[in-house]
């Protein structure tokens, strides 16, 4: 598949990256070269092969149950507040580039 400049712009938008002209040019070249190589995956017949998103789906899952009960190992019912107390407010703000002491401050959200 051939990646075009338009694709690069579209993907950069999705990824929230404000690329420079030079970066666009280099990425166009690199993406094409890598995807050319990746295209060899289409040589393989994968009809009837289920996709594997999580290797750990295969251990810990209770196959005898259905729905979210199968993943009971991942949650605990005995804890009401969650596994531990939430991060204190001031600690959560500690690394913030800009705050008013309560909220994270950012430039205007709605563009006019």
């Amino acid at each position, binding site marked *: 598949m051939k990646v075009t400049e338009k694709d690069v712009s579209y993907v950069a938008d*999705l990824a929230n*990256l404000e690329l420079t002209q030079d970066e666009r040019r280099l990425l166009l070249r690199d993406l094409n070269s890598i995807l050319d190589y990746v295209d060899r995956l*289409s040589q393989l017949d994968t009809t009837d*092969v*289920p996709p594997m998103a999580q290797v750990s789906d295969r251990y810990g899952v209770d196959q005898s149950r259905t729905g979210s009960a199968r993943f009971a190992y991942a949650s605990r019912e005995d804890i009401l507040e969650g*596994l531990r107390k939430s991060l204190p407010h001031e600690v959560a703000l500690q690394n913030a*580039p800009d705050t008013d002491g309560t909220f994270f401050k950012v430039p205007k959200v709605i563009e006019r």
Partner: protein
Amino acid sequence: MDLKELTIEAARAAVQARRTTATSLAEAFYAKIEKTDPEIGAYLTLSKDRALEQAARMDSLAAKGEELPPLGGVPIGIKDVMVTRGVRTTAGSKILGNYIPPDDCTAVARLEAAGAVVLGKLNCDEFAMGSSNENSAWRPVHNPRDLSRVPGGSSGGSAAAVAADMALAALGSDTGGSIRQPASFCGVVGLMPTYGRVSRYGLIAFASSLDRIGPLTKTVRDAAIVLRAIAGRDPMDATSAEVPVPDYVAELEKPVRELKLGVAKEYFGEGLDSEVRKSVEAAIQRLAGSGCEIVPVSLPHTEYAIPTYYIVATAEASSNLARFDGVRYGYRARDARTLSEMYRRSRNHGFGAEVKRRIMLGTYALSAGYYNAYYLKAQRVRTLLVRDFEEAFKKVDAILTPTSPTAAFKLGEKVDDPLSMYLADIFTVTADLAGIPGISVPCGETKENLPVGLQILGKHFDEATILRVAHAYEQAA
């Protein structure tokens, strides 16, 4: 005290017996760092206060004649992708240049609970993306065995620190080979546990279905000691497995006689450097001499592992790195007039070129119209790779391969060709995709005195067997 001769057990024993103190041990390592690190570049941040407080705690236990925990007084380094409370953590990136985490990575907390002394944070490729540590936003790392060469990556700082006696052990992370490959390039042991064996809580995520934390050490025994301390279910990580942790150290001495070790022909084809081949084949012979049965096996989909990896890992990374937006932590572009501009500029300025390349690739692979052709296809091929291993493990207990097709390459040699850099991972990515454990153990040198690594791959949660084989090899060599 000769830092070169120290192992975890020897260090702990010396502190326990009060032949030395944890404090003077830490100071000796800091002196070595001061002397040697300017030409290596392994450390990004030193945590002297924390280290010396812990050392004092261990010394006070020893002074009272109380038993030290298993890593009491042992100086370790932590790859900078694992958060450390109060100690700057950057993931090798400028986008987290001033980030001070409010919490500890579980693996770090467990090591400290076991008495380890955290010396500092180790350099790595940015967000663990790389095979040479040249993608660090701060500085590259130089291979202690040859300063003109790379230490490997992305845990280059971890491997270099252990190889140069600037830490007695280190934690690294492995997503496509990032523990094993630098271990092989620097001549140290690198263990990647089974996915889910060690909690990922506190590991800054790259690819959530692939990432693992594991030790880099001087000996196999040391790797077993560290694994025992960090492995086990963690409620803070839903993907950490509810599988009991064996006594890996006790398992080491079990005989390897009659174990069946597979040799996969796909790992010995063209592209494998002749010197690496020689060393690895000699290692296989040595294990045969120890009574192991060498069995030819085939992993037919091996050649599809790299393209699969570079779709799966980059797709997951594009999602995981979306959180770096300048809002709550990290770098924020100051000249942005709108929120959207702030996101885009912060990310574009804060991320390095390789990270952007992978985010773009991953976003493309997941985007509407391409999701089926790329991401879903790769996930199906992943199943085929897992099946290859399942078939092979019906016949053998472990599989022997070279860790890397070459020994350490020169700094700058592959930076302009991303694809060529990606192909360096060819022997390591398969294990990441399949979820199985793997260890790299030094098995000789090339004519230029560059270390070569033997990789041993095992069944899910069978770290005990691969450690045993690695230990047997190490003892025989």
